[in-house]
Structure formats: C-alpha cells, structure tokens
C-alpha cells in the first residue's frame, strides 16, 4: 500500500484541525491528552512517509508539480520536520505548567490547546517548504512558518521578556520578508519565471545580463540569512531564543533553521556557477563561525549559550553549503536536531525546578544522574566528541571543505571547535564539578525519559553508523 507524498501534509493538517476543534468544543478534558494525540498522529504520519508512491521526477511546466517536488531531499526533510515537531510536543507537555502560569484564562488550562496546535501547523509549513521548488511556493510556506512562530514566540505573554522576544522576532522577520519579496521580484523581473528549474534554464543563457538577477539573489540570501541566523543577520537570535518559551526556542533553532537550509540549497542551485556567490557565502560562513563561537564564550545563561551555539552551527553548515555538499549538510542537520533538542529537553525539565542559567545546573549529577548524563551526551555531541553524531557531522563537513580546497574555512573551523569545547564543557563542569545548595531530585516524566533515552541512543548510533541517513538521501 502506498500513498502520494502530498497526502502527508494533508494528514498533518487534519491532525492540526482536529486538535483545534477538540480544544474549542471540549473544555473539560485534560488538554495534555491533545498533545499525546498529536504526537501519536504525527508518529503515524512519519510511519506513513515510508510507504510513498514514487512521484513524477521531471518538473511539470504548470500546475501542482511545478510548485511541489517529492524528491529525496524533500522527503528527507519532511521526516525531519515531523520528528522535530514530535520532540517539541513532548517538550511542550513538560513545559505546560509554565504556560499555565503565564496565560491566565477562564479555565486553568486555557491556551494550552492552541499551544499544542500551532506547532502542528508550523510542521505543515516546514513540510511544504521542504518540497517547494517555486519562489511563490517558497514565499507562502515560509510565511506560514514565520506566522506561526510569531504567535508561538510571544505565547507566554505575561512574561515581559517573552513579549520583547516576540516583538524583536516580529520586526526582523517582517524585514526579512520584505527583502525576500523584493529579491524574488528582481529574479522574476530578469527571468520572467518563478520556478527554480526554469530560472536555472534562463540564467544559463550567457547573453542574459546576470547582474540584476544576482542582486535579487543577494536579497533572497539576506532573507534566508535571517532564517538560518548567519552573521550579520543574527542580531535577533540571542534575545529571541532567551525570551521565547523554551520548547519554542528549540523548535525555532532546529525547525526554522533546517527549513532555511533546505531552501538555501534549492535556491542556490541556479546561482552556484557564479564565483561571486561562493565568495560572498564563504565570507558569511567565516563571520558566522567566529561570531557564534566567540560570543558564546562568556555566556552564563544556558538558553543564550545555545542561541550562540546555534549561530556557530549555522557556520559549520554554511561550510557544507559553500563546499556543495548537500549530503553533509543534511547529515549535520540531523545531528544538530538530535543534540540540540536533547539539550533543550533537559533544559525544560531542569528549568521547571530551578532556572535556565548555567549555575542552575550545578550539582545536577547528584540531583538527577539521568538528566546530567543526557546533557553530557548532548554537550559532547555539540562539541564534537567522537562516537557522537555531532563529531561525524563535523567530519563530513571538514572533509567536504578540504575536497573543495576551502583551507581558510577549515582552519577557522578547527580553531572555533576548540572554543566550542570550552563553552559546552562549562555546562558539564556545572553539572559534575560544582556542588549545589538544592538536593531535591528533579522529577522526569516517563514520556520525557523515554524520548531522551531514544535521542541519546540515536546520537551514539548515528555517530558510529551513519549509513541510515546516507541511504535516505541516495
């Protein structure tokens, strides 16, 4: 039995609407069952994604298949979005008490239903984005994702820090939308097309003046730079990551970034023969690596630290992009998903008891050896210790860069890895070396425990045996 790839989005959409309806018409139920239902549903869709009917491979000139592709990259990132959303929903269940405190309503669980429904719609947007091969499609699906993030980021609106984050995210995202639209306009103006394949075909004509199209592409790159948090478009990241509700931060740092990279990989294809483009991206990658890693060094708040670390990882991913290594980028993103979401999952649980500063993790090894070990694995992987997925990701990236003789990038990359060891191990130090005034054990729900264990196992297994990911792309 097989299904068509576009059905996947419809299914997810139905799950979202279902959650929304139940939330609206059944006030008495425990809203957390909605999250469990959604997790179950998304898992079912994830399973269904392994029984896909083959999609048309050649791009149609008009109609559905001129906007939508179901190639391997798209399917891969659809699954990626589903996994991310499932993990974020698990985190959101743990985070529910905080939402309750900051969104007072008529009932004690008011607002929770929407909190669980919005990520599902975001997930649909991410899945559409993974399939987008037309600038119009990219625009609308990107806006769907952005729109739901506007709401999610400012969701706990009783908390002033959250609102500030929301406003900052709003303004900078809207700005990036402006650049995106204007850039697409220029590309359309030169080529008369919005479909990526046809844009490529038109641009291949040497008689065409490429300057204006390149200008349009630069504007699109600026917009995507905001999404993937590349320097110099990263200024919103630390504040928004720190202020937003923690599961949303996790979603933002993984889902939004991954989608940005898929679009980047697709959009860059028509422009990669231009040496200016590679040079510009190389410089952006260098700046991103340096800024993300150096600014992370003095941080004392874990959410903020992870924000800078996400900028830093964008730098490594950009090395992969500059080296034309789509496979390496995809693998790195998977590793990034696992390790980032694992650290956020631990953060949510621990922050419920103490707080989200690094010093709040002091003595975690005594309070909850399980959580401390999970965090240790996540940090080791983020830093790039072998036998974790994070190391293999860096390995692929550096290998790709050396293949393209990007020596500068590699040298800077290696230096910044050493910086990374310093700030990630700061967290490890707090957990294992430092004592704590609190001795109360940290409660972990069974669902979180199972999820975290699964993520730890995945990090280690993929760190030794990367073949499943590589096969999925072949």
């Amino acid at each position, binding site marked *: 039995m097989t299904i068509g790839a576009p059905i996947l989005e419809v299914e997810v959409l139905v799950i979202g609407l279902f959650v929304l309806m139940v939330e609206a018409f059944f006030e008495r139920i425990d809203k957390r069952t909605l999250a469990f239902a959604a997790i179950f549903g998304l898992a079912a869709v994830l399973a269904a994604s392994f029984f896909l009917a083959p999609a048309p491979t050649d791009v149609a000139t008009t109609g559905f298949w001129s906007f939508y592709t179901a190639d391997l990259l798209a399917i891969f990132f659809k699954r990626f979005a589903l996994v991310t959303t499932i993990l974020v929903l698990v985190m959101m269940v743990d985070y529910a008490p905080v939402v309750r405190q900051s969104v007072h309503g008529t009932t004690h669980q008011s607002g929770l239903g929407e909190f669980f429904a919005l990520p599902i719609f975001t997930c649909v947007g991410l899945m559409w984005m993974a399939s987008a091969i037309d600038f*119009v499609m990219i625009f609308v699906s990107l806006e769907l994702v952005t729109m739901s993030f*506007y709401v999610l980021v*400012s969701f706990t609106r009783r908390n002033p*820090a959250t609102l500030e984050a*929301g*406003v900052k995210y709003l303004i900078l995202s809207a700005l990036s939308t402006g650049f995106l639209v*204007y850039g697409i306009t220029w590309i359309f103006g030169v080529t008369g097309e919005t479909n990526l394949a046809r844009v490529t075909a038109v641009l291949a004509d040497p008689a065409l003046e490429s300057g204006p199209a390149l200008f349009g592409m630069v504007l699109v790159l600026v917009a995507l730079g905001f999404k993937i948090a590349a320097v110099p478009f990263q200024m919103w990241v630390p504040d928004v990551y720190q202020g937003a509700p923690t599961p949303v931060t996790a979603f933002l740092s993984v889902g939004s970034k991954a989608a940005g990279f898929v679009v980047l990989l697709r959009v860059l294809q028509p422009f990669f023969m231009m040496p200016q483009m590679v040079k510009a991206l190389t410089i952006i990658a260098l700046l991103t690596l340096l800024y993300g890693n150096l600014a992370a060094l003095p941080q004392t708040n874990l959410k903020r630290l992870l924000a800078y670390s996400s900028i830093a990882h964008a730098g490594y991913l950009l090395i992969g992009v500059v080296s034309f290594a789509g496979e390496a980028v995809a693998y790195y993103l998977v590793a990034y998903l696992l390790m980032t979401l694992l650290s956020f999952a631990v953060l949510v649980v621990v922050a419920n008891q103490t707080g989200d500063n690094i010093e709040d993790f002091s003595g975690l090894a005594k309070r909850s050896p399980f959580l401390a070990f999970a965090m240790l694995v996540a940090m080791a992987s983020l830093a790039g210790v072998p036998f974790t997925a994070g190391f293999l990701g860096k390995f692929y990236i550096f290998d790709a860069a050396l293949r393209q003789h990007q020596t500068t990038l590699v040298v800077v990359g290696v230096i910044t890895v050493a910086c990374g060891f310093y700030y990630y191990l700061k967290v490890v130090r707090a957990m294992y070396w430092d004592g704590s005034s609190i001795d109360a054990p940290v409660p972990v729900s069974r669902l979180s425990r199972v999820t975290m264990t699964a993520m730890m196992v995945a990090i280690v297994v993929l760190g030794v045996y990367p073949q499943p990911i590589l096969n999925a792309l072949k």
Partner: protein
Amino acid sequence: MVTLGQYLIVSGLLFTIGFAGVLLRRNIIIIFMSLELMLNAANLSLVAFSRFRLGVDGMPNYNAQVFVFFIITVAAAEVAVGLAIIVALYRARQTTHVEDINSLKF
C-alpha cells in the same frame, strides 16, 4: 513615454524609504508601517515587470499579479498578528519604543 526603468527607480526609492524607516525610527508602530512600505514597493516592481514583460499571448504576465495578490494577503495577516503582539506589549510595558525593550542584553 514612461519606461520600465522609471517605475523600477520609483519603486526602489519607496523600498529605500521603508528600509530607512525601519533603521531610523524607534517607534514600533511606525517601523511596522515602514515594513508595509517595503512590501508595497516590491509589489510595484512586480506589477511593472508584469506589464512590461508581456507573456507569450501578448498580454501582461499575470503570474506576477497573482504573486502580488499573495503578498497583499500575507501582509494583511502579518499586520493583524503584529498589531496583536504590539498591543500585548503595550499592555505589559506601556511602551511602543524599541529602546525601552532592551532588558535582554548581550
């Protein structure tokens, strides 16, 4: 006669005015209006391209106009959500000033 270039320059100027507004103004509502200016500048360029670069049938390229339609819709939705966030901020902090929302620092 008016040329495509003139339309593009006018639209570019509008885009720049909007961008300058985002960079220079500190009032969030006005920043938001400036963002609308930028989006509309893009719309003007799109429509100009649609009229000047005719399709194969000798009529304007309506693909661009559909895109403009999408942009207007998205912009309207964005305004609605954005203003809701700004109202929530005003309720909590009694300000719409960018400089007042800097409790999060480096």
